[in-house]
């Protein structure tokens, strides 16, 4: 837990910062008349705000009402955002102040990185980051920032989303496949990393026969290590569906699946994939239809019983 997330008023014992002084007790703020929140009588879902929260936001309302843009208000917004990083109006106000005072945005990147580290699943901190990077026109810190965040939470949707935006906007695809390799190596079940792989391919090489062949090899290798890994199987299905032969037309893949069956390496994902292959052929091929029924029975009764209703339904309707 970070310094600023400890209950602010007892901060002095836990961190090196001085104790927080309420704004109403600060000499340099004597010129400002705080504005209390004007909720209606019998308001609903009232929040039991801390004294610090009320103090900070009473002063923020006062300066916001007059649109004061100064270094002291910039600091006040920092206090307000530490208390509630989801207050998008405070972020809006902060950006206005940065523009107005022509503050060095690299300084803001440092603040932004700190907020992202403390609140990695908050939408507003990531939007603010994007806004600052756009204003600066400089994405040079972003790959490292997102990589660091992914080290804490390798599936953080916000981090992946920001990275995709950076890479696409600034044409920075160069190291991305290597990143995917590394992340999949670290956690073969990281669905976000597999998705990023597909994203990178879509935006760079495309799905030429050579590229697909190489990626099929890679994916089959990963499946061999973890035959229950849905992420790899979904990726395999995804890339095959980009080819003209579709899911059922790849000999290597078909052979691979047959070998797994023959060596009794059965998983729900393998059988489900075979169902998909055979469903693709089932319209014209009676044998394929029978195969679907057989696979569905196996899934329903033995391999994937949680979904037995679904597999039985598929068997009946093929």
């Amino acid at each position, binding site marked *: 837990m970070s310094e600023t997330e400890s209950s602010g008023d007892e901060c002095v014992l836990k961190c090196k910062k001085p104790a927080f002084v309420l704004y109403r007790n600060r000499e340099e703020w004597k010129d400002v008349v705080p504005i209390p929140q004007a909720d209606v009588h019998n308001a609903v879902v009232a929040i039991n705000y801390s004294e610090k929260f009320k103090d900070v936001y009473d002063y923020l309302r006062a300066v916001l*009402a007059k649109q004061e843009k100064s270094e002291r208000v910039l600091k006040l917004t920092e206090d307000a955002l530490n208390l509630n990083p989801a207050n*998008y109006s405070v972020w809006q106000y902060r950006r206005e102040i940065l523009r107005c005072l022509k503050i060095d945005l690299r300084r803001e990147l440092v603040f932004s990185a700190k907020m992202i580290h403390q609140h990695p699943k908050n939408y507003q901190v990531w939007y603010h980051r994007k806004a600052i990077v756009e204003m600066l026109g400089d994405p040079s810190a972003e790959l490292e920032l997102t990589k660091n965040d992914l080290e804490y939470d390798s599936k953080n949707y916000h981090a992946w989303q920001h990275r995709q935006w950076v890479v696409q906007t600034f044409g920075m695809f160069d190291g991305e496949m290597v990143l995917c390799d590394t992340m999949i190596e670290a956690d073969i079940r990281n*669905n976000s990393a597999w*998705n990023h792989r597909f994203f990178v391919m879509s935006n760079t090489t495309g799905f030429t026969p050579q590229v697909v062949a190489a990626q099929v090899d890679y994916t089959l290798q990963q499946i061999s290590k973890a035959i229950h890994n849905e992420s790899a199987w979904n990726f395999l299905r995804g890339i095959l569906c980009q080819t003209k032969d579709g899911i059922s037309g790849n000999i290597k893949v078909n052979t691979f699946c047959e070998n797994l069956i023959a060596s009794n390496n059965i998983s729900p994902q393998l059988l489900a994939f075979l169902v998909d292959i055979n469903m693709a052929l089932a319209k014209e091929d009676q044998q394929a239809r029978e195969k679907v029924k057989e696979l569905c029975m196996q899934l329903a009764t033995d391999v994937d019983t949680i979904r037995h209703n679904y597999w039985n339904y598929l068997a009946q309707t093929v």
Partner: protein
Amino acid sequence: MEEVKFIPGTHSKYFKRFLQMMPPQTQKGDTQRLMFAFFAISGLDILNALESCNAQHRQDMIEWIYSLQIQPDDDEESWSRCGFMGSCTFKLQSKESREYQHSHIAMTYTALSSLIILGDDLSRVNRPAVIRGVRALQQPDGSFCAHLGGSENDMRFIFCAAVICYTLKDWSGMDMPLVEDFIKSSLSYEGAIAQGPGLEAHGGSTYCAIAALVLMGRLSIFSDEQLDRLRNWLLMRQVAGFQGRPNKPDDTCYSFWVGATLKLLDRYQFIDKKKNREFILSTQQNLTGGFSKWPDNTSDPLHTYFGLCGLSLMSEPGLKEIDCALNMSVDAAKRLEQIQTWNS
């Protein structure tokens, strides 16, 4: 394993406490109080406990919601800012701070839904202003931002826009073909729907997209093949409860996001109800009431609301049936139909 008993009375008390006063840790939800109110109001409705809130209390709630409506002024430009705010934190009178007096699309959505559930007839809603405010948030790619002060844009706000347009029976709040384009381009290689193009398929964004399309009457943008692939992906999300993405842990709220989508796509009958119910109840907090995302976590209003919805989808005794696209009880949805007497 001893079977966990469902304790609806405790959950009612949980929501009633939240309606009165929320604990200090909810300070971080200060701009979203309307959304918390919606979880409690709709939650109590689904629990058949809203009637036990006295009429004055319900009227107070209605007044509070209306106090958050932003009305236009003489300036034509002000119409873009209309709708509802989430709280009165920055509801200021000063002209200089006008730019900060703007609606938030999720708060407009939860305001309208809460009003209907509370029995209000929406007669004090400035319909044309709300619709103009929604339209002002649509982006060139078809998606919606949440508000005018600088916001991310994704599938969540498309759902909000769709519910608002449906509720007020006015689809000029969105360019529909653009929305359809955005949803289509957010279909990932997995066969399910992400928050935006290129991003990872996700149970939450999939619900938002499908529910929006159902409300728009435009589910037909997807072929039968695409819908079957999606149905398959959704059914694969069941671990015991449901997960939001492959290889993630199950989490109570996905019993609704994924479950409701399956209902809308007519495949809910294929889930394992026993395992789903066991998982949801394993996240029930017996002392405080409410549900949490995982067992042995603190409960919160969102997971409590969607945990209850998840149980309702399985016709849990004592809970009202839900309208899966509108995300409110069928009772409330019927009441909406009755009050929609205005001409479009």
